[in-house]
């Protein structure tokens, strides 16, 4: 049967099912194919902390949202246009997020009495008209998958597991995407299990064929390639980007990369990635705990590596005494905190921006460190390179803040040419004449003299250092001097970072000032409001300590400044304290990124009509 093809500018799709249903896999396969088709995209994986929560339960629902478009997009989309619900719980949890007339593709075989009860439905929503207004398409996904696998020697359970590929095939058909990238992936992934490979391929084809032949679908859709800046692209998640950035920095610095880390959600993928790059000379130590993770990195830094440690909030809390040690010993160190919901264990798989205070102030004593924050998944690459550059140049620990949303989310990333990467070649001190461990250069950085260098034997440690000689010193005046010098050194970095740029009018009534992972939602909101004729401007902080030199001056050019954050107003607090400017705070701590509609609503309430 001939079907209409309708061209759309952008679509937001959400796959949802049990945490064992393979929704993250389905979502990432759809993402890769979409990326290869040249769409701009942004993703939001959302999964429970339990690996396999009991099937059918509301708390076991795992989701993957993907926003893809033929134009430049910034967020994973506020509200899905399409929900693929593998069971009643997935429907129930996600329904409230959907657009009013969204399409719901539901696996009707999973809407049995047991699953309905687990999802706390009294009647079947596919039949009781409660979904009126939505475009509900019940598909017997399980039965059709089983039918497609007829003749294969697999258990019922194993056949059940293939239904995500059926759903994926159907979605590929619906959005006019090719099957080949997924088939290639299946071939590689299951090359050791012929039957499973065959089963998944069959399920994928069957889903695609079902869309083509069934009369339920009268229209299929197409989203044309986006007009991105010319260049070579790949899809990249924030965690992958941090890993690549650190390898790139090591290449540029000309010294080996060393990672000390301890597994923690959602940062572990950085450790996984870097563990693969042995032929880049990357040494990774999965340490016995978070503290050891940073301490092995400090040892490696002392002996001449570009050293890093990666973690999430609770892990950073454990590392803090050692961060102080690297402040005192003035050794280069990159500390990546992939922020998650806190305090304590909090919401391990959900995103948050509430570690800003911890990064800035969470140590004993006057303990200044450089703090950076990445704004998009792709920007995690650039900020990891930047964190390394600053750490090496100024002999200082640098904390790079990303978050769960950036870490697991992905977007097309324009692959940089090697020549575009910043210059940061390291030279170790070898000259004996005039060597003092704490004699500083024009940037207040002390020399990096590594073990193995004859004649430069010296001792450093956590006790206060005498200026220049670096000997242990309990002299009170010296302490005051050194405290101020360490602060001055970090502050001095402001001369080496870009000014805060303002998008839109350079002064006016309202500035939206964000930091870190809220960039996408803010940008989308501001773009929309500008196109509607509202007068507002936008700026985004990627350097939190020190802040760009012109920050205070930028603030003062606007009558009002709104600071949206996924915390209770930490940046707002710092800005008020630092610049005595009464910024307005917009906060949310639901473990999810802002929807642009939430920011828009606040803006409208502040400035009224146009």
């Amino acid at each position, binding site marked *: 049967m001939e079907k209409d093809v309708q061209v759309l500018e952008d679509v937001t799709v959400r796959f949802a099912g049990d945490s064992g249903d393979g929704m993250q896999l389905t979502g990432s396969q759809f993402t890769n194919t979409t*990326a*290869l088709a040249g769409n701009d995209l942004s993703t939001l994986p959302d999964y429970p902390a339990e690996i396999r929560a009991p099937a059918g339960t509301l708390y076991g629902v795992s989701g993957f949202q993907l926003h893809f478009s033929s134009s430049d997009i910034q967020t994973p989309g506020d509200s899905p246009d399409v929900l693929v619900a593998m069971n009643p719980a997935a429907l129930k949890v996600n329904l409230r997020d959907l657009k009013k007339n969204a399409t719901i593709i539901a696996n009707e075989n999973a809407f049995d009495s047991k699953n309905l009860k687990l999802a706390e439905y009294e009647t079947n929503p596919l039949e009781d008209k409660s979904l009126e207004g939505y475009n509900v398409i019940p598909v017997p996904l399980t039965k059709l998958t089983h039918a497609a696998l007829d003749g294969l020697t697999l258990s019922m359970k194993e056949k059940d597991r293939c239904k995500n590929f059926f759903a994926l095939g159907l979605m590929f058909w619906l959005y006019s995407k090719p099957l080949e990238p997924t088939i290639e992936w299946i071939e590689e992934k299951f090359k050791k299990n012929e039957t499973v490979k065959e089963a998944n391929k069959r399920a994928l084809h069957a889903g695609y064929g079902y869309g083509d032949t069934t009369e339920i679908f009268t229209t299929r859709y197409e989203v044309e*390639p986006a*007009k991105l*800046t*010319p*260049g*070579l*692209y*790949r899809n990249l998640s924030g965690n992958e980007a941090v890993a*690549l950035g650190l*390898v*790139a920095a090591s*290449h540029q610095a000309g010294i*080996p990369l*060393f990672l000390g880390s301890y597994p923690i959600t959602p940062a572990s993928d950085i450790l996984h990635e870097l563990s693969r*790059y*042995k*032929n*880049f*000379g*990357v*040494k990774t*130590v999965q*340490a*016995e*705990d978070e*503290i*050891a993770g940073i*301490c*092995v*990195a*400090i*040892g*490696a830094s*002392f*002996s*001449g590596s570009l*050293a890093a440690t990666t973690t999430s909030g609770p892990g950073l809390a454990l590392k803090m*005494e050692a961060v102080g*040690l690297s402040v005192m*010993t003035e050794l280069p160190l990159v500390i990546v905190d992939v922020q998650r919901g806190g305090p304590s264990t909090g919401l391990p798989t959900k995103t948050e921006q509430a570690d800003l205070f911890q990064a800035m102030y969470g140590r004993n004593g006057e303990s200044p460190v450089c703090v950076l924050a990445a704004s998009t998944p792709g920007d995690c690459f650039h900020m990891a390179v930047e964190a390394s550059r600053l750490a090496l140049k100024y002999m200082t620990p640098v904390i790079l803040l990303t978050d769960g949303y950036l870490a697991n989310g992905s977007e097309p990333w324009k*692959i*940089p040419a*090697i020549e575009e990467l910043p210059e940061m070649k390291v030279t*170790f001190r*070898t000259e004996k004449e005039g060597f003092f461990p704490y004699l500083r250069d024009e940037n207040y950085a002390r020399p990096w003299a590594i*073990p*193995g*260098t*004859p*004649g*430069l*034997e*010296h*001792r450093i*440690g*956590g*006790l206060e250092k005498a200026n220049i000689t670096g*000997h242990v010193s309990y002299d009170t005046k010296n302490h005051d001097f050194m405290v101020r010098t360490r602060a001055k050194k970090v502050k001095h970095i402001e001369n080496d970072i870009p000014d805060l740029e303002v998008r839109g009018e350079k002064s006016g009534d309202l500035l939206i000032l964000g930091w870190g992972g809220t960039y996408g939602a803010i940008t989308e909101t501001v773009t929309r409001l500008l196109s509607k004729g509202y007068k507002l401007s936008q700026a985004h902080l990627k350097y939190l300590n020190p802040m760009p030199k012109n920050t205070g001056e930028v603030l003062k050019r606007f009558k009002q400044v709104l600071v949206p954050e996924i915390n209770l107003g930490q940046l707002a607090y710092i800005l008020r304290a630092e610049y005595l400017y009464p910024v307005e705070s917009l906060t949310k701590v639901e473990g999810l990124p802002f929807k642009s509609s939430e920011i828009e609503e606040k803006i409208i309430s502040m400035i009224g009509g146009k």
Partner: protein
Amino acid sequence: MSAQEVKTEGAKLTVKDFQTPHDIRWCPGCGDYSILAQMQRVSPDLNVAKENFVWVSGIGCSSRFPYYMDTYGFHGIHGRAPAIATGVKVARPDLSVWVATGDGDLLSIGGNHFIHACRRNVDLKILLFNNRIYGLTKGQFSPTSEKGKKTKSTPYGAIDHPFNPVAVALGVDTTFIARTMDRDAKHMQLMMNRAAAHKGTALIEVYQNCNIFNDGAYEHLTEKDQKPDTTVFLEHGKPLIFGKNKDKGIRLNGFTPAVVDLSSGQFTADDCWVHDEFDKSPVRATILSHFTEMEDFPVPFGIFRQTTKNTYDGDVQQQIDDITKSQGKGDLMKLFTSANTWEVK
């Protein structure tokens, strides 16, 4: 600069090369002085260029040690010396990395790092200054203090059961475990030399007297008149014999050791347990390690056990070398484009 290019030129190293000009700030009479002196004495002959020594420590009296050794040194934070040292050694396997630590530092706050460094067999030499007390914080009981010990924090006696560091080290299959004492300079030097020659984690527990907060803790082991009867010095291939007149021996009946009298004619040296330093099984060394808790048994000094195992730092490097050989040296652009890519024109 690669470390291989670094060579010490000129004259042979001497004790003086390892002394720093700083005043040593341990209490007069402290056992630490002896450990420092022995280390400075053996260092010139370890066949390591001076610039390739790195001393790492944690917190405590013992952890001031790196300040007094004129080598590269890192005075870390409490308990973390094994982790910092692991980082140094894994990043730079060419360096000779030593840890100075105490019973509080290594066995209490640093217990986790201690067992994992040993488990991995990182090529570190760990000197454990065991004075069975917290000195730098002025006299609280430590994990090796005896039960019932009265200290500032245990005015009615310590309730804690003490830690047996040698038994713990054996439990995580540490590849070199020895014990010595501050008052026996020759033996300590011997142990230091043997540890230095060992490839892998080497633990030397040094019984060290804190003359301020726990004076005399080891007097019964170190004083001339008592030492022969309270200690047994382990030597590979030699029977376990002790006593002023070499008239006592240790016999092993199955897994049960017994002190026997060699003067009565019932037993001779041939009946005694012969020490095998390289025993593949940890069982005998474990029995030895518990003599400290057994009444009438002498405290063993010497090498409990040494075995051969790949080092962690060596294997990390080996894996890198092997994979680099099979996959070729990493190319950054190839890495960037290792996922599916597409061109936007």
